[in-house]
């Protein structure tokens, strides 16, 4: 886990960000324009953050169709995650799914995922993972379901309560030896999309593969992310939400907060701790402490934003 490195430095208004980690239950972030705000337990955070703003939910890497040793019941754990969403005391405004909805892009897997996720009765904004574009037509199956109103391989933006949301696709046209890839067309679209957005507008970017280099040896990064981030430099608050690595990681760089979500299907090893990034089999009793959902609270008036991860086994 990374903590901001400026703990001992004078905290200026732009860098007032703290990360607090509670063992076993998840991570809570607060961003504020003054002194870092300490939020307590999950319940307290909910009460504090949703009073005047809104929350949304991130789920990721549901891998419907996966049935190997690391979790033979990925359908059940997605159902548990959705039950957890439905039980939240504060109803989120919508959900985002940061990809790998399915394991093999089959129609049946997409159907099952849609049925379970639909049970939460929220609008869901999707971006594809690499597992969602391996149908015989190289991504047609995903676009037929979720491509309406999107550009290119499925990228788009929308606004909610004064926050500008951008869904990016970095899993298509990957190059030999490379990492995730946005491509020139998408970057040109992003530059154009941001033209009309004021610098004071909070930005939330979501994409499957992390937009920062977590561990290139395992492909955990995006080759042309720097170009996208350069376009986002002038904004005062940028939050980047990713999946793909099935574990919580975070980094803060200037005004940009990067965060990766847990999977609802199976955990993957920490960078470099295993021969490969493949599914990690843990004792059955531990599995649900490594799967989970992410709740993001936006409180406009006070420029606060909180990212709260909670596991399927958490209270």
């Amino acid at each position, binding site marked *: 886990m990374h903590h901001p490195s400026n703990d001992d430095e004078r905290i200026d208004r732009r860098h007032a960000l703290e990360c607090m980690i509670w063992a076993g239950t998840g991570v809570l972030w607060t961003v504020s324009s003054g002194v870092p705000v300490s939020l307590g337990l999950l319940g307290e955070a909910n009460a504090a953050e949703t009073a005047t703003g809104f929350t949304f939910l991130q789920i990721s890497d549901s891998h419907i169709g996966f049935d190997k040793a690391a979790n033979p019941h990925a359908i059940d754990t997605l159902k548990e995650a959705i039950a957890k969403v439905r039980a939240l005391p504060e109803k989120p405004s919508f959900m985002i799914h940061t990809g790998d909805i399915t394991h093999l892009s089959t129609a049946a897997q997409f159907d099952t995922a849609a049925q379970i996720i639909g049970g939460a009765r929220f609008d869901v904004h999707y971006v594809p993972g690499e597992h969602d574009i391996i149908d015989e037509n190289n991504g047609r199956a995903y676009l037929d379901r979720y491509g309406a109103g999107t550009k290119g391989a499925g990228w788009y933006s929308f606004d909610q309560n004064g926050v500008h949301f951008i869904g990016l696709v970095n899993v298509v046209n990957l190059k*030999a*030896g490379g990492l995730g890839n946005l491509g020139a067309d998408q970057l040109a679209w992003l530059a154009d999309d941001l033209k009309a957005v004021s610098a004071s507008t909070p930005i939330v970017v979501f994409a499957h593969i992390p937009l920062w280099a977590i561990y290139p040896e395992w*492909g955990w990064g995006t080759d042309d992310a720097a170009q996208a981030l350069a376009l986002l430099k002038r904004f005062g608050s940028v939050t980047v939400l990713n999946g793909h690595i099935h574990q919580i990681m975070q980094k803060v760089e200037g005004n940009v907060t990067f965060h990766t979500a847990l999977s609802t299907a199976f955990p993957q090893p920490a960078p470099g701790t295993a021969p490969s990034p493949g599914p990690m089999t843990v004792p059955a009793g531990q599995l649900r402490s490594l799967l989970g959902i992410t709740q993001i609270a936006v409180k406009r008036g006070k420029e606060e934003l909180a990212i709260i991860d909670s596991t399927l086994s958490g209270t």
Partner: protein
Amino acid sequence: MIRINLSPRWLASALVCLGIIVMAQAPLGAADTARVKIDNFTFAPKVLTVKAGTTVTFENDDDIPHVVVANDGSFRSKALDTGDSYVFTFTKSGDFPYFCALHPHMQGTITVTP
């Protein structure tokens, strides 16, 4: 004085080596076929040299699907789930670098000799 340590571990690895030698020799005599195993997000062997006309089988032993695709686009598998294979016959000589379309840090080369 040379000491030979015949520990169970040594014996086991010796037996595995023998097995590999036997397995490696069989296809040579049998037919123009060769195999690339996909395991732990790597292609093995990373460089495989075959004669023109050889049919190469790519077999996925990982718990995650992979897609074998030539850098020059000359061949491309479907998504290979665990245990699935892709077969391609190399007719032209030359080096054919390939990678996994899903995990492009995975790379290999088929070298085809006349």
